[in-house]
């Protein structure tokens, strides 16, 4: 069904593009926000251009109230959707709302992470499928103030740079063709909003097979918690026994390491 759409000739594509530009404002009606956020229209316009549907198949798990607003665990599971090309996670009421973007090139549309919250806010996730539709869902998380504008804990240490990028990681084989990768990298993830501390964060994490085939590409942004903690589920059906993780921060520091995928299934 979707194949027929992508099979349009180039000329038709251009024609459609022109049409959509001229009719952008009125083309799609924005559905009401189940989270009743004052930022909904603004967020949708900025991050989800095109058709938006509220879709319960996008599952966002988060605590009702954050015990620690510097480290709020979030899990996004869009595995009930097919042909996912992009996942964007937002915190509507953070001073910097964009948390991360995942391109699950050869991975399940699934990501776990931790986020800093400035105040109570919707955690909103948009999942773009290959037909261009944004499937949006989210949850409200209660939080005390100050997560984004406080200095990282690393600043109690004068030698934080010596452990920069140090990583703990574990890889499991969830099923024959699916791995689950969890990692935690040392990084202050400075937002630039704490007085006198410039912005400095891990901005890119790429998971590849040992021979360099892209599996999952992540763009991280300022709200990701200090010492980023991520869970990703790469597809390992092609006899992949080793993953390569590459990470880069906004100062150009680069980190790269291999991770073995166990041969036996173990949940």
């Amino acid at each position, binding site marked *: 069904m979707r194949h027929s759409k992508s099979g349009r000739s180039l000329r038709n594509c251009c024609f459609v593009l022109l049409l959509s530009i001229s009719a952008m404002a009125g083309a799609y009606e924005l559905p009401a926000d189940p989270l009743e956020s004052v930022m909904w229209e603004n967020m949708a316009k900025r991050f989800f251009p095109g058709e938006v549907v509220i879709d319960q198949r996008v599952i966002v798990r988060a605590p009702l109230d954050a015990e620690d607003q510097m480290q709020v665990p979030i899990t996004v599971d869009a595995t009930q959707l097919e042909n996912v090309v992009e996942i964007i996670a937002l915190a509507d009421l953070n001073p910097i709302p964009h948390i991360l973007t995942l391109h699950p090139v050869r991975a399940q549309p699934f990501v776990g992470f931790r986020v800093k919250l400035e105040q109570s806010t919707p955690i909103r996730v948009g999942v773009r499928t290959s037909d261009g539709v944004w499937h949006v869902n989210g949850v409200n998380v209660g939080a005390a103030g100050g997560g984004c504008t406080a200095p990282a804990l690393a600043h109690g240490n*004068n*030698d*934080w*740079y010596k452990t920069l990028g140090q990583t703990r990681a574990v890889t499991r084989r969830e099923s024959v063709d699916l791995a689950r990768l969890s990692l935690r990298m040392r990084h202050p993830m*400075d937002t*630039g909003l704490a*007085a*006198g*501390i*410039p*912005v*400095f964060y891990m901005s890119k994490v790429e998971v590849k097979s040992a021979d360099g085939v892209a599996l999952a590409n992540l763009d991280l942004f300022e709200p990701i918690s200090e010492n980023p903690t991520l869970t990703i589920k790469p597809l390992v059906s092609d006899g992949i026994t080793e993953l390569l993780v590459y990470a880069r921060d*906004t*100062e*150009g*520091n680069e980190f790269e390491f291999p991770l073995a995928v166990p041969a036996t299934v173990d949940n």
Partner: protein
Amino acid sequence: MKKNFKLLTIASAITLGVGLSGSVKADAVGIADIVGDQASTDDIVSYGLGPRGQRYSPLAIINKDNIKNLFPVWSFSFGGEKQRGQESQPLIKDGVMYVTGSYSRMWAIDIATGDELWQYDARLPEGILPCCDVVNRGAAILGDKVFFGTLDAKIVALDAKTGKVVWRKKIADFEAGYSYTAAPLIVPTDAHGPLLITGNSGGEFGVVGEVQARNPETGDLVWTRPVIEGHMGTMNGVETTMTGTANESWPGDMWKNGGGAPWLGGTYDPTSKLAYFGTGNPAPWNSYLRPGDNKWTSSRIAINPENGEIEWGFQTTPHDGWDYDGVNEFVAFDMEKDGKTIQAGATADRNGFFYVLDRNNGDFISAKPFVKNITWAKGIDENGRPIWDPENRPGNPAESADGKKGKSIFAVPSFLGGKNWMPMAYSQDTSMFYIPSNEWGMDIWNEPVTYKKGAAYLGAGFTITPIFDDYIGSLKAMDPATGEIKWEYKNKAPLWGGVLTTAGGLVFTGTPEGYIKAFDDETGEELWKFQTGTGIVSSPITWEQDGEQYLTIVTGWGGAVPLWGGEVAKFVSYLNQGGSVWTFKIPKQLASK
């Protein structure tokens, strides 16, 4: 109107031609733009308005007659709580200004409006050890990248459009006391293409001075050249040749922490195809611990950028005992003398003498004092070596009763130099150098010292005293052929900013009192000044945009003077910090008057 339209058509046709050839990006800085920077008035793509560092602009739209009509267009604040000294020279390309600031920050500014395009703040570690304020002196530009060094001894390449980090490389270990404050130098080579060349800083911590050349695209090292005798250079990671001969002018192991940091960066002469770097004083300051000339400290060295070999060296202060760094810029110029044109280069040294050398082979031509009452040497002999006054070298602590403090002496100039980092200018119209200098001396004594990583490695104590009651700063016009000083402007506070001269017959410099001033290049008469609200310790630039000549100066009081000032404090203690860019032009309605 019609005429303008025609011009536009031609311009777009040319652009199209370039596009078809597919080799040149219209908005990217090429190596030829850098080499020819002095002649092109619509951009500034090198430190020194051309790699020779003459700081001379052929622009004459602003001149002696109309400078009275020069007014500010906009002022841009660096903001934040991080002020301190602003010693930066901005770069200009396609209507955008790239300017660096204290604490390793950089901005891109739209010149037409003064609006910020982007800001980059280096995330510095807490343990940086800059000796003499948290300054930065400027950036380099090539292709689609801008480059600058940071206080933690790193070199960063930023995307010129976005300010995002493209690559970032370590020059040296900041925990051992290295840092970086100079503007990087970009030079052409046949063997490697354009190279990005840096020195290093950290002379007060017993580091080893080194010049490094990198591939600007990747940041990868191409060659390294330590400036201290006994250390090995490298090419593509493989050891090449030793600098000098081990222990020829250094005793024992002292060369291993011998100092000589080329912390002010370098200049390049397209005719000789040599890169000129000045080197810092030897470590430690206590000269009795290191008998010998201590090469190549307090020197000018000429490096062949093709292979990183030292073609020649000239030591201005052999066996230094006064902290007379030899880092000051070596400016290539053609000197008319006795009916001949000499391919010369000149440098105004910390030690108070103005040297003229043959820039091809380093042969000594002349040395004349440019500050008054020099005491450390009685003069310079016919070979260019100082005639030391043994009475005015600080005494050996080992010869004192308790071995803890040597005899104190009074030396002129002070360790902050007859001239410090602030670059001079050379006018191709008057054939004169305009030297920002200071008249001061110091009481200095030696103490025992041993090397410890990351700790100050001086072995000396000191305090600075002005020589005259009413002024320290002195801007001088010097004829390099005769050593004659044609005029002098006296300034109460020490001068700490660079100089610019133009075909408009003007000499510009800033003062710690906050004024940007313009002088008549022939007479020294003060023709114009503007109060910027904080001290000036940076280098002015001028360029042409849309038919108008612009002038820019970065402002913000700081640098080494308030940190090491001694008795000088009463001349400067009231000065306030800041951090701004001021840009001037002659308003259109006054341009014809």
